[in-house]
């Protein structure tokens, strides 16, 4: 049914950045185009600022200069990203480790989700309460999609079938991120061995923080279902891991929906 998509007021904006597209979907009933436009301008500026700071493809970015070594004075946001990287490396037992990357420290596996959180914070500062930020498949959700929804019903891409979703999860205030290996060669490297990840074909993580969701999804592709060891110790986090032809779900987000589904 498309009806769900027609409820309330929907305003979308999108921006080409980082070689991909970031979009927002605002459903606040009482807002106006002018408010959304103003918020969106701030978001766009932040997206391009983040690109200038964190791009590993730009030789003059802060991250590129960090990778060349030496001592650097870094801004608070770079320090924040490094803190998240440390937290994720610790929490995942090293399955996520941006320091074990060819060419030096590379936080790219976390920055997209981190940026989505930043964008969500900007939209909230402009008074918006019900929206998603979609950073190329990593989403941060606030409020709900409209009347009749507790949150935002988000599909998890099916790794084999473009016409299906593997599961649907309702997210109110939180983030969802998905990583995978099977689609375009070996995308994820096991930082502990330097070889292609052999854990899960696809891993989706739901939780309170976009940066960590991004990192944990990548780490679960490395760990596979044996990642339960570290993942299930994280309070407030849920995951949907597809290994072989079996989907395994952990955590409260999937209590009702996905636990018994197979991919």
């Amino acid at each position, binding site marked *: 049914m498309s009806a769900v998509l027609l409820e309330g007021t929907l305003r979308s904006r999108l921006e080409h950045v980082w070689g991909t597209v970031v979009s927002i979907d605002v459903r606040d009933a009482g807002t106006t185009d002018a408010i959304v436009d103003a918020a969106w301008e701030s978001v766009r500026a932040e997206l391009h600022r983040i690109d200038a700071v964190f791009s590993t493809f730009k030789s003059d970015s802060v991250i590129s200069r960090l990778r060349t070594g030496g001592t650097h004075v870094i801004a608070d946001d770079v320090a924040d990203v490094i803190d998240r990287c440390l937290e994720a490396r610790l929490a995942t037992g090293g399955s996520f480790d941006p320091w074990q990357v060819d060419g030096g420290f590379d936080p790219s596996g976390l920055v997209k989700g981190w940026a989505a959180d930043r964008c969500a914070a900007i939209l909230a500062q402009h008074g918006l309460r019900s929206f998603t930020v979609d950073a190329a498949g990593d989403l941060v959700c606030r409020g709900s999609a409209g009347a009749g929804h507790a949150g935002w019903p988000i599909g998890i891409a099916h790794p084999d079938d*473009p016409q299906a979703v593997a599961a649907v999860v309702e997210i109110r205030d939180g983030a969802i991120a998905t990583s995978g290996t099977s689609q375009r060669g070996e995308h994820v490297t096991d930082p502990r061995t330097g070889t292609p990840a052999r854990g899960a074909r696809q891993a989706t993580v739901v939780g309170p923080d976009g940066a960590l969701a991004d990192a944990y999804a990548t780490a679960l592709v490395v760990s596979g279902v044996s990642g339960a060891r570290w993942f299930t110790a994280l309070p407030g986090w849920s995951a949907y891991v597809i290994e072989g032809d079996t989907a395994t779900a952990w955590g409260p987000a999937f209590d009702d929906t996905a636990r018994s589904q197979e991919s």
Partner: protein
Amino acid sequence: MKRALIVGTGTVAGVAAVLALNPAGASTASAGLRSGATNRPAAAAGTSGSTSTSSGATTATGSTVDVGYGLVQVQATLQGGRIVDIQALALPQNDGHSARISQQAFPMLVQQAIAAQSSQIAGISGASYTSSGFAESLKAALLSVGHAA
């Protein structure tokens, strides 16, 4: 081909937004939808945006989006307020790689877009392989269709 699937995972949400703008939804959807791409000189927007009707169907043509290695432009056919077909008016063919991605991904994106009409989802989370940016640009094109609708 499985590998083309994830390339398109970002698209359905954009299609969902488009659906909210279709004529049948006009009574309930108060939508303001625009592509940020139109603000950029690099993205050649505005070659279209027109809609036309013939035999009960509405055709909405998206703006042309420059994805850096070619142009993307799509045209959606709506009937009874639903997307029934999406045609590519332009796809990147600059080199063999681009052409191959175009050939593999586009039919799947069309299927996904049409399937999204029957789903209750407001977005899709998927592993994204952003080096091409191809599917995400199609999302922009589809959003621009919505803008025109």
